């Protein structure tokens, strides 16, 4: 028996290279890009819908990649808000990968976009190991999933510098104190930012956009 050693090339090296290529492509077109990760039903789509409307009112052209295991519901919602959208069905895959995003970028008019949102499949574990090549990443959870969500998924929160806690208007109805989520996140990631939102009504959306580098000035939207 003998061992053969290898140079420490990352197993997901191909994915990392593709993510890097996506990043370069988006930068070359001057597009600011944001991945949106989060639990199923946490309000990722509603938050992006609100962001589309808000950013369009600021004169920005918004593109979206809507990923779901099946269907085109989110894609249609983004189109209805005026985004340029591509629908991606991952079928049995629980996450998007950089290769799929690369193909989706081919279907978008990149020279006509200023901002791109990539909505990942609803899942708080799997997408974390697959970088897509976007500039920023946010994780969306909601109070209706319980106030232990951060403690149950500590690794993803330890590595995410912007978290949105959505549906705070329902906190009392479901008996959840959003401040517990805030406190848990602060313990796991002392330098991260966390924003409480009610995306459906638009509350907190401007704060999220400002933290993503899109300060909104237009008060009429």
């Amino acid at each position: 028996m003998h061992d053969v050693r290898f140079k420490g090339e990352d197993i997901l090296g191909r994915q990392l290279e593709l993510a890097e290529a996506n990043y370069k492509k988006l930068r070359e077109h001057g597009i600011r890009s944001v991945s949106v990760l989060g639990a199923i039903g946490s309000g990722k789509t509603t938050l992006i819908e609100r962001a589309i409307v808000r950013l369009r009112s600021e004169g920005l052209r918004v593109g979206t990649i809507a990923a779901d295991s099946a269907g085109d519901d989110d894609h249609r919602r983004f189109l209805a808000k005026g985004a340029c959208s591509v629908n991606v069905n991952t079928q049995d895959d629980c996450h998007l990968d950089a290769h799929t995003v690369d193909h989706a970028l081919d279907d978008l008019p990149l020279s006509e976009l200023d901002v791109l949102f990539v909505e990942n499949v609803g899942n708080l574990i799997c997408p974390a190991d697959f970088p897509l090549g976007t500039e920023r990443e946010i994780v969306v959870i909601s109070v209706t999933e319980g106030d232990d969500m951060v403690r149950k998924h500590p690794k993803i929160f330890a590595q995410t510098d912007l978290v949105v806690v959505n549906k705070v208007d329902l906190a009392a109805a479901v008996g959840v104190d959003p401040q517990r989520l805030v406190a848990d996140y602060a313990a796991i990631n002392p330098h991260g930012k966390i924003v409480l939102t009610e995306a459906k009504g638009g509350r907190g959306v401007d704060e999220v956009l400002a933290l993503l580098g899109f300060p909104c000035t237009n008060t009429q939207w």
Partner: protein
Amino acid sequence: MHEYAVVDELIASLLPRLETIPGEVSAVFVRKGELRILSDRALENAFDLLSRGTRLGSARLVIENVVAVVGCAACSYQGASKYYGDEGGHSAIPVLACPRCGAVVSVVCGRELYVDRVAIKDDAPPWGGVQ
């Protein structure tokens, strides 16, 4: 179950590198940083299934976990991170803040995921000697 996608990449990238290396592969040793969100058991199960019918079919996957090391630009600390939760236990999570001064840290190691080495069974010598 993204472990299947990871193991699929592992096998696809490893097989070409083994083409010039004769002998039966008995083990594949993977170094996995503790910041990766990957289950050892799911990786092993995926490897058992996906390696069938390949040169890695009789190999076992051995995961070697790598402890996180963080570096602080503010106070020049480099070393072990603070942990959240069950400190020293199985579910402790590295906190990405400096254990000495609290500033933001960079990850020196703890995010890696690579094949470090493979174990090859040596062929029986032609005279039938004891191995």
